[in-house]
């Protein structure tokens, strides 16, 4: 098996799907000859040409609108929004159009689009290049949010997303772009709406995704040497997320900590902990805790940013608090 970065795995998935299905095309800012701001579309312009690897102006509404319209007439567009923070400029297209087309016309049209975007902080990107935006979309029926944590899942989930008939927001955490991992050659799928138990344990369940998933794994490793057995779940699809896998685990461990880089209020972690409390209350030995970003924008200063985002120490403290409850 080849070792690839997440960027290479995503690039591989796009190339495979474009070669296999002429309906698949990419559009976004600087994705053509330049290959995208992070290199995810590198080489695709030379292979498939400017018609199918289409550079756009800084018109995010037009990028999403074009994708939806093309999808309504049978195409399979993959749009790139350079930084997730920019989605504010095309929010209407995402929530009032892409997500509603299927419902409001009662199934006559579909919007099978994939909107790839680079998200997440920790690198001094400042207030407009660092955010986790899933919370902006948690309350949008019809929309699916996919969020890989490693190169293998990135490729398999992107292939599944392109093949799926729903509009998909595909979050790519910038801190994971250079992460390396084994990736099979050729086409394979990682199923949507299926979380994965990435480490088994008996004392507590850590639920997370993307970058903080790796923090959870590191904490679980540390805890093991201290005699605490943590189970770690990667949600992979974060809207709608896989209740069964999480509840099954919590019913076994009796404890849960939910970790998400986005702010705590009204976010993914709030929903996960609420569902655990509603559905597995009698199994709980302690309240469910959330470890999330603070209720602030992301500052430019690295030391300030570090104060705001969740990290291993904050996760470990929460775990110990729950264990000692």
């Amino acid at each position, binding site marked *: 098996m080849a070792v690839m970065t997440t960027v290479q795995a995503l690039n591989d998935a796009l190339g495979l799907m474009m070669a296999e299905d002429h309906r698949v*095309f990419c559009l976004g800012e600087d994705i053509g000859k330049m290959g995208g701001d992070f290199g995810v579309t590198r080489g695709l312009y030379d292979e498939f040409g400017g*018609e199918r690897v289409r550079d*756009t*102006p800084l*018109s995010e*509404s*037009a990028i*999403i*609108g*074009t*994708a*939806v*319209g*093309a*999808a*309504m*007439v*049978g*195409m399979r*567009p993959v749009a790139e929004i350079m930084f997730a923070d920019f989605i504010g400029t095309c929010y*209407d*297209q995402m929530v*009032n*159009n892409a997500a509603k*087309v*299927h*419902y*409001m*016309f*009662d*199934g*006559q*049209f*579909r919007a*099978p689009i994939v909107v790839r975007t680079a998200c997440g902080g920790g690198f001094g990107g400042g207030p407009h290049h660092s955010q986790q935006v899933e919370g902006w979309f948690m309350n949008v*029926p*019809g929309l*699916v949010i996919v969020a890989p944590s490693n190169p293998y899942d990135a490729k398999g989930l992107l292939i599944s997303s392109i093949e*799926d*008939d*729903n509009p998909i927001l595909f979050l790519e955490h910038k801190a994971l772009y250079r992460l390396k991992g084994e990736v099979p050659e050729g086409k394979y799928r990682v199923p949507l*709406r299926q979380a994965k138990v990435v480490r088994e344990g008996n004392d507590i369940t850590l639920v997370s995704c993307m970058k903080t998933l790796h923090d959870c794994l590191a904490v679980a490793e540390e805890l093991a040497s201290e005699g605490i057995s943590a189970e770690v779940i990667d949600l992979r699809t974060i809207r*709608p997320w896989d209740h069964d896998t999480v509840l099954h685990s919590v019913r076994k461990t009796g404890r849960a900590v939910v970790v998400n880089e986005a702010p705590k209020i009204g976010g993914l972690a709030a929903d996960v902990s609420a569902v655990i409390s509603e559905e597995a209350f009698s199994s709980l030995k302690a309240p469910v805790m959330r470890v999330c970003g603070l209720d602030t924008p992301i500052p430019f200063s690295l030391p300030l940013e570090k104060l705001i985002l969740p990290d291993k120490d904050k996760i470990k403290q929460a775990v110990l608090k729950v264990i000692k409850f």
Partner: protein
Amino acid sequence: MATIGISTEQHLNMYRDMWRVRKFELALEREFKRGKVPGMLHTGLGQEATLVAVAHSLRREDGIFPDHRCHGLLFLKGTPGAKIMAELFGKATGVCSGKGGSLHSADVTVNNFGDNAVEGSFMVTALGVGLGWKMQGKDSLVAVMVGDGTAGRGEWHESLNLASVWKLPILYCCVNNGYAISTPVAFSHATGDLVEFATAYKIPAVQVDGNDLLAAYQATQEAVAHIRAGKGPYFIEYKTWRWQGLFSGEFRPKEEVQYYMEEHEPISMAKAYLLKEGIVEEQQLEAIEKEVENEIESWVQFAMESPQPDPAKATANVYVGWEVESWQ
């Protein structure tokens, strides 16, 4: 205005369709006031000539993005009128099973892509339809109905720019009725002549009297020919006037109201032309009006007698392939 090779039959069809639009809206307004039509009501009364000019210039396989004053266009595009009326009543027999209503009536079978009630947002959706069809080698065009108030939206400018750059088969039909709700066009835009925006984006554009059926029809025919020849988008500004005032009542000057409802009123203008040119007899026109009356009332009857949507529809078609939680 010359008759540009229009047969008597087509003259009569267009005249009939203007009445169909008019009487559809009048019946709808009546039933709305009686509490039979839920939600909000925006009518295309006064804009019949523009709607008919567009409808008669499109083929069934051409696309349409109708706006909120386009009820008439919904059935003129080919959807049975009864299914449109039922949709506006929110009934099970409606074209979207009652889930879309006046502002979201789409019909995939006639390439009606539906309204987006966030005015102008679908101007960028239309880019995708045009691009998709171009990539698929189809020669269909897509018509986008937009009001004057839409010129303030970012999507307006993003759409005109990219349609021009990508040479997409899009017909922009700007129905300028003078006011965005209560605000006069020129008060809130750099120009009251919206055609100038399209020109700035290097899109061929004309301004036409949208109450003059033949002028509007001829302009639309020329636009459609341009697009079908593969020359890219075209923009028409139809200058017209809406009968509907505000929910609080009439807000426009008396003289203006009188001018558009009596002197420069599209159906009486068309009628005067047909009679003056000796194309038809007055009796024929009266018969048409009566026939249309019966047709529209049969649609109202159908909508009234139709059942409410199946409760299962409330949670149907949120996702493709996945069910959502329901109360049951």
